[in-house]
């Protein structure tokens, strides 16, 4: 099990949604991610660039389309971040 670890790069709401979507698949086409999350091309490009720079996202161009996928470090970082979110949420449940 991945140890909880808060990740600043992933935590931004749109980036967390991008990662959550890509974690559920091997890869997804740029327009599918954009439409599924209801964001614009430029917003997706901007956040994809941040994730790519962090080494969490892989972009592959094929036949005039761009495919996005999470890298192994990206999956590990997301798993750690989600574990941390669950820990925080569970802690509040214990206190309440």
């Amino acid at each position: 099990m991945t140890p909880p670890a808060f990740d600043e790069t992933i935590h931004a709401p749109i980036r967390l949604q991008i990662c959550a979507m890509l974690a559920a698949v091997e890869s997804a086409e740029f327009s599918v991610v954009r439409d599924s999350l209801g964001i614009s091309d430029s917003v997706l490009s901007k956040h994809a660039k941040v994730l790519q720079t962090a080494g969490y996202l892989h972009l592959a161009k094929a036949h005039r389309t761009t495919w996005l996928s999470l890298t192994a470090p990206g999956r590990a970082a997301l798993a750690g971040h989600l574990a941390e979110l669950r820990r925080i949420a569970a802690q509040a449940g214990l206190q309440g």
Partner: protein
Amino acid sequence: MESDSARIALEGVAEVRARVADRIVSPWWYHYGFAAAILLAYVSISFRFASYGVPFLTIAAVGLTVALKRTTGIEPRAPRATRAVVAWSLVALALTVVAMALEWGGGVKGAVAVAGVAVAAIAVVAGHRTDRALRRELRDGHDPAGL
């Protein structure tokens, strides 16, 4: 970070997974196209045209898979559903081996063609069941990071 924010973020993650699951619907032509290719290949093998049937099935399978990926814009990842595909494939393989033994070992003409009908039916039924398992796995997944 506050617990409410963490809970909202986790709910957002579950919502995204559900949205992805809703998108994973194979078009009608995929399973039936695959079944038709299987049937044609088995019939051609049964009538001693294996040199046409096997390459045809290979090209059809690759072509349909590429077309599916382009149509849905998603390359799925679901270990449990993949295991189900492997299990169904083993059943189809066993059926094929028995049919080949009957036709070429036991002289039962058309056994491979009949097996083709059964394997094509398996492809349709297993395809739809795998689609459903895939969606269920995505919705109910306890590990959204897929690790």
